């Protein structure tokens, strides 16, 4: 972490491709995504201002697959059990309806272990959890169970 006196802090690292990427956190809570220039690692090719909401959405996009991979690793020991993330398409059957209404566990044996919304992970959602378009539903179950769950969430 590099302090920027009077402005905030800079946190960055050099990625394998040689570029430096990172985030400037301003004192007033705004963020800026920075990407270094090719050929001049000291300079920035672009710095993109992000509101706290946008920053958390981006963190979710990058972080959610890690979460699923993490869950997958946990379940690998149990043979026959798998993890999958299924999107709730905006305007689809369950957009605006509760988790309980899917009756997923009853119909397929698979369970919803988490819902990722706008970068935030809602772990162990209760049956009264209301889905919204754009949610990513993390489901754990057998291969067949997951197939069935995907179909149910897509078309009821």
């Amino acid at each position, binding site marked *: 972490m590099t302090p920027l006196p*009077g402005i905030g802090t800079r946190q960055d690292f050099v990625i394998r491709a040689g570029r430096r990427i990172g985030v400037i956190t301003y004192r007033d809570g705004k963020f800026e995504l920075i990407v270094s220039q090719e050929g001049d690692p*000291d300079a920035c090719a672009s710095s993109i201002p992000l509101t706290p909401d946008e920053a958390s959405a981006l963190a979710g996009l990058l972080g959610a697959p890690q979460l699923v991979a993490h869950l997958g690793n946990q379940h690998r020991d149990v043979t026959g059990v798998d993890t999958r993330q299924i999107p709730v398409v905006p305007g689809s059957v369950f957009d605006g309806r509760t988790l309980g209404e899917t009756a997923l566990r009853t119909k397929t044996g698979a369970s919803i272990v988490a819902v990722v919304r706008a970068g935030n992970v809602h772990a162990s959602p209760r049956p009264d959890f209301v889905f919204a378009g754009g949610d990513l539903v993390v489901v754990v179950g057998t291969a067949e169970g997951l197939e069935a769950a995907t179909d149910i969430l897509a078309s009821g």
Partner: protein
Amino acid sequence: MHETTISLIELGAVFFGLGILGRLAWRIGISPIPLYLIGGLAFGHGGLIPLTGIDAFTDLASEIGVVLLLLLLGLEYSAAELMTGLRRSWMAGVVDIVLNALPGALVGLILGWGPVGMLAMAGVTYISSSGIIAKVLGDLGRLGNRETPVVLSVLVFEDLAMAVYLPILTAVLAGVSFVGGLTAVGISLAAITVVLVVALKFGRYVSAIVDSPDPEVFLLRVLGAALLVAGLASQLQVSAAVGAFLLGIAISGSTAENATRMLEPLRDLFAAVFFVVFGLNTDPSAMPPVLGWAVALAVVTTLTKVATGWWAARRQGIGPMGQARAGAALVARGEFSIVIAGLTVSSGAVDNRMAALATAYVLLMAILGPVAARVVEPLARAARNRLSPAGSA
């Protein structure tokens, strides 16, 4: 009230005009400070439209402008940031002082303004404009650059240097003897130490005095405290500006951030009046004789600031382009050079030519600084290609 009506119209016209100038300045990518100064010069000595009846207000407003400029300079960096800055970048800071204060002091010596004039001119050419530099770095998207912390730490050091310099300057301006001067230096060093210790250990309590969840109450308390401290300091012969500056350092944490956000528009308003009044009190006919000196100083101190930034960045392992950018970023001088010149001239210790020289110098540097920061990359690239035609940019 007829007089009030005229004053309102004049004041309105002045502010509106300054608004147009400010917009124009940022459009063409320079700081508005030189345009405010030119505005003041135009209205001053036999200018286009003589302004009457509002000088009582503008004089007070320009005093408040100085207090707010220094208060926000103090608020800009927390005491902890100042201490780390001092520890990490003192070598770059010392190089900065030596390279950039000397040219000003030499010109003061040559023009025969005595030790007081030398000290004041050294300050004018030394202090970079943290306002212009922060704005330019943000506009050019360079805050994420690796050389930017180097630039900022030089500014932090200058901030600390001002805390020591301003009390000394005001003591010398008040015409104290050599022994008295040393006493003043001792007192000011003790004062800044006490303020830093208080800010580091008990910053919460100082902040608590002015803090309030209600923005209206908060604004009134901060502004009231600043003017009170400034007034008391000036009563003790330490100069209002120094008092406000030390108060700014003592206020810390989130209180400081809120105060900065709230006072920024007020500072911009009163500082604009300060620049106009400084321009008004400067005799334009005194400028041509000192113009040569101003240009010479501008050339020399541009090179010395570039050298400072280049050296500081190089020590931190920044690449050649980053070194060039760090150097060019530091070139701008502005508000604090004018504050120093204003303090000096109003004390009557140095003749009016200094106001003219400082005005001409800041006019050049406030325009040159942002331009230098912009053109440094293409220039450095061209220079590199010329040296090694086979190398790619």
